[in-house]
């Protein structure tokens, strides 16, 4: 968390779970198993990203190679931070998550279609998911949010005059 760049955090992802005190991969942590090495979808437990405002968490997920996180629920700030870095957070109910946990081995593949808001596997649809249209558009088009806001500069100025901001 002390770095001043956005890149290079993947090596620290889940560090104390992935590696032992000597820096060797722990055999009992699932990301270290061969079958999960190249996974791009992370399935996780409830309240994922709990509490932290640190964008270092999504930077680490992204740098490691994850593009989608599926969990029963997400912490608010973490959810926003994911979207702003091009990671799609998907909230699904606990029952489906539990099924995914039991299916997710030996080459099981999951497909995520953001435009259709659907998760499916080789047998067909698994679940559909909700996403705010604003976030969806942002993820699909990869727009620069600051530029979009600056196009509303006149309204911001008007607000400042009306509210006497800073006077």
């Amino acid at each position, binding site marked *: *968390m*002390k*770095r*001043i*760049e*956005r890149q290079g955090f993947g090596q620290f992802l889940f560090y*104390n779970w992935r590696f032992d005190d000597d820096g060797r991969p722990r055999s009992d942590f699932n990301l270290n198993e061969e079958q999960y090495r190249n996974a791009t979808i992370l399935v996780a*437990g*409830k*309240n994922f990203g*709990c*509490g*932290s*405002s*640190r*964008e270092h968490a*999504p930077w680490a997920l992204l740098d490691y190679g994850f593009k989608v996180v599926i969990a029963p*629920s997400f*912490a*608010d*700030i973490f959810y*926003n*931070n994911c979207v*702003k*870095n091009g990671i799609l957070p998907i909230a699904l109910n*606990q029952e489906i998550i539990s099924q995914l946990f039991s299916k997710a081995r030996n080459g099981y593949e999951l497909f995520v279609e953001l435009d259709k808001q659907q998760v499916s596997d080789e047998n067909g649809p698994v679940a559909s998911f909700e996403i*705010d*249209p*604003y976030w969806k558009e942002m993820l699909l088009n990869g727009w620069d*949010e*600051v530029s979009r*806001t*600056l196009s*509303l500069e006149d*309204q*911001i100025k008007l*607000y*400042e005059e009306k*509210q006497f*901001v*800073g006077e």
Partner: protein
Amino acid sequence: MEPKTIIEKIWDKHVVHEEEGSPDLLYIDLHLVHEVTSPQAFEGLRMNNRRVRRPDLTFATMDHNVPTIARHIINDPVSKVQMEKLEENCNEFGVEIADINHPDQGIVHVIGPELGLTQPGKTIVCGDSHTSTHGAFGALAFGIGTSEVEHVLATQTLWQSRPKTIEVRVNGRLGSGVTAKDLILAVIAKFGVNAGTGAVVEYTGEAIRNMTMEERMTVCNMSIEAGAKAGLISPDETTFSYLKGKRHTPSGAAFDEAVAEWKKLATDPGAEYDEVLEIGAEEIEPQVTWGTNPSMGSSVYARVPFPEDYKDPGDQKAIKQALAYMDLKPGTPIQNIEIQYVFIGSCTNSRLSDLRSAAEIVRGRKVHEGVTALVVPGSKSVKDAAEAEGLDTVFKDAGFEWREAGCSMCLAMNDDIVPPGERCASTSNRNFEGRQGNGARTHLVSPAMAAAAAIEGRFTDARKVKPLVV
């Protein structure tokens, strides 16, 4: 007019732009900046050739990484770079900064209120989840990520979806010697770490009305641990008298005008929340957490639970994992848990009243053998005020270390780290795995409970450790 909650009043007043299918564009009145979550944001401005839109509404300090022993010796070169970067960025973009040697330096959530920057009705953001602290003044204050820090620096606004509203009503009065920290820990233990997801919480009720501003800050500080985006309290006379005479608060006739406006903010009678949660203040006893999230806590008179006490298999698994990390056996009385470290500090509990309540217990006593105990004031001015009334001597005579202001052992980003396997009674806000150091075991408590644990070497009811007359 339709009765409104304070949350809706502040929200409605700050909407700059709204459109169908999109969050609202909210104006931000105060942006607090620190060294950890800002370097990439300033870099983003630089790369796009943008300026800070309102440096006058932006204020920076250094707190997370700062050393608390010798101010000039920063052992970790990476920490040093982060602090130097903040200084450089503030100079380049014209942002006021209280750097490591500045008399106003301190934890960002301690100095905002101290300087009177925090005021009722404001929208306040900072790249830190404990920004909710400022809600104690009736401000809408919440933590943001680094992309949002950049967005606020460039535009002084944020796209935000209108939150759900929750009232947490605290009925009755807290018992004598039961603190604001015990209340918020009990709220989180009762309703869980997901209770506030997607919502802003307003705390109401007699126990809240009776609290000082510093106590209210402790409560609002941990709103995020209950999953909420923000927590706030409608302002009242306690709020106004705290703010009077603060450096950035209006003075003279302008102050009276401000108060008249602030009085209109309080939630209207009959206003409706999306959800109401109630807790009785009388039933709350001094709290200690035993697990690895802030809801895993109980009364000091309870025992460590059995995983089988929980119905949900997921909860059972989580409890098992937590107890394994904490090295605790189910059924152990909380009062039998021995500690090796004590940390009194953090944005939750490092203000003058916190230090006073700990000092009252410590005065004339000695820290238990084998216990390392630290007091880290929340700001330079808290430290000065505590020294002026001799609290530093009380702590030092008892064997505590008396440090410089900063975040310190709350999150172990500087040299103040709890070693692996050691157990710490901490007045901070998070007991996650590794929070205070790799393998460190954190028990969250109030300052009085931490002081009592320092003396006894184990948890005990602080109300029973009577002040000595010395």
